[in-house]
């Protein structure tokens, strides 16, 4: 559905994006992950057609961005971090305007508005003036304008920024619903959000693509981690783990009185054997779990590798 090949972008002599290539299949939600200034927004702006790449190509549903930019724009829907809303318009009037701007015939716009109102969960707000809507609803109107013309690719820049927890849950549901029949790419600085919403992750660091794949695939590229909590002295647990042949790293965690807890890193996924060895060594295991910040660990490892 979407092919990005060798995307490069210079701002003067500064290379904001260097030879980035990835693809997005129909029905797939891809998360763009990177630190501030990594090149996420530049990538999204190029995909949206508001910025021209210095080199490389973007093809969406067979249409090349350079050869036919206006046709390409009819195939994309873009929600920037701050939704492009006219505060004086009602939701319906705004969506009608957005549809006409995307080149839709008037009759098609009218029949499409109820569909996107439902998809973006805006029922009951159709005649409300946009300026009076809450931040969460404004984001939804932004999403509705991005999909009014039934695009092949939906681009969402930080779609959950500024939303409260209840709105985040709703937005996650809305985004999941968008992927039917189209590709979705979103950027977020909230790693947990990427992890929960996206099928695949593209990691960009210093303008370069450093990794891409599912969370599990990215995990395999790095170390395997687990959190072990046992009864007993923390020192005993950490020194035993450090001496174990499978273990490449141990990080002690704070635990309740009488308990010891640590994050354990291994190059191969042999968690069952490690736990069996712990039991064999006389440790009373209280809890074994995945680290909460697993994606964060992967991300930091990837960006650190790239930097060194």
């Amino acid at each position, binding site marked *: 559905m979407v092919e990005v090949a060798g995307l490069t972008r210079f701002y003067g002599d500064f290379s904001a994006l260097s030879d980035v290539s990835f693809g997005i299949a129909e029905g797939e939600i891809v998360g763009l992950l990177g630190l501030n200034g990594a090149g996420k927004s530049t990538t999204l702006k190029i995909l*949206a*057609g508001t910025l021209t790449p210095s080199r490389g190509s973007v093809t969406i549903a067979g249409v090349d961005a350079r050869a036919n930019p206006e046709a390409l724009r009819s195939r994309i829907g873009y929600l*920037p971090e701050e939704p492009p809303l*006219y505060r*004086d318009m009602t939701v319906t009037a705004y969506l009608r305007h957005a549809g006409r701007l995307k080149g839709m015939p008037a009759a098609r716009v009218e029949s499409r508005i109820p569909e996107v109102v439902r998809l973006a969960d805006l029922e009951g707000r159709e005649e409300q003036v946009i300026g009076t809507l809450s931040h969460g609803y404004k984001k939804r109107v932004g999403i509705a304008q991005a999909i009014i013309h039934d695009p092949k690719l939906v681009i969402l820049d930080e779609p959950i920024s500024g939303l409260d927890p209840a709105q985040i849950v709703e937005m996650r549901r809305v985004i999941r619903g968008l992927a039917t029949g189209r590709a979705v790419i979103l950027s977020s600085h909230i790693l947990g959000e990427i992890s929960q919403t996206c099928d695949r992750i593209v990691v960009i660091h210093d303008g370069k693509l450093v990794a891409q794949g599912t969370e599990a695939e990215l995990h395999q590229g790095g170390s395997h981690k687990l959190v072990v909590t046992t009864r007993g002295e923390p020192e005993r647990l950490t020194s035993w783990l450090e001496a174990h042949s499978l273990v490449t790293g141990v990080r002690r965690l704070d635990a309740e009185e009488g308990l010891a807890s640590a994050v354990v890193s291994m190059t191969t996924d042999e968690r069952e054997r490690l736990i069996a060895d712990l039991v064999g060594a006389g440790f009373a295991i209280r809890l074994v779990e995945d680290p909460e910040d697993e994606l964060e660990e992967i991300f930091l490892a990837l960006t650190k590798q790239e930097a060194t």
Partner: protein
Amino acid sequence: MTALTIARRDLAAYLHGYSAYIIIAAILFLQGLMFNAWVLGASSARYSHEVLEQFFYLDGGFAMAAAILLTMRSIAEERANGTEVLLRTSTASDGQIVLGKWLAAMAMIAILTALTIYMPALIMVNGKVALAHVVVGYVGVLCLAGATTAIGVLGSAMFRFQLAAGIFSTVLTITLVVMWILSEITDPPFADLASYMAIWNMHFTPFQEGRLTLSSLVYYSTVTTAFLYLATRILEARRWE
């Protein structure tokens, strides 16, 4: 046509907001004041067509001022509010965006111009003027305003801030107005060139006098097209920023 969609939205924004009303009211007030004091209040006796010429002289100037005040917000405000993204990710070409902005401002100028009709009517009541003179004079005012609106759209495309856009457009317009002074102090062929480039003197005077000349129509069409083209190029260039 997408340009009309953009124009319709902009026109609605002008009509629903208060700034356009303030601009139009202020211009009508000042123009009415000057019309009474300067055009109708002259001490010497004059023919009605001379009074009408003076009215169009005034009306042309005020239409230019209105064009700059109305257009300084057009693209600059979209940029400042972040709504420009909606236009730039639409299927509208940059040329259509510029054309839509120009059409909306011109619709407002047309409303303003229509509201000045009572002034020639007053001259007609107190004297005798040819209707054709009135029509041609208004065509001239709209041509002049069209060119100035194009300059205003260019300024608005260049700057994020309305004030900067307004200052740029004002300076560029005044430069084009005073070109005729340059023509008087330079030698040919520069004098001829400066005289031809002047936005007012050589090209607007025939309209003021009720004469419809093809060369003036061509001049205003060319100036309008050239500045709209430049504004389009500015928007295109921003995709490379």
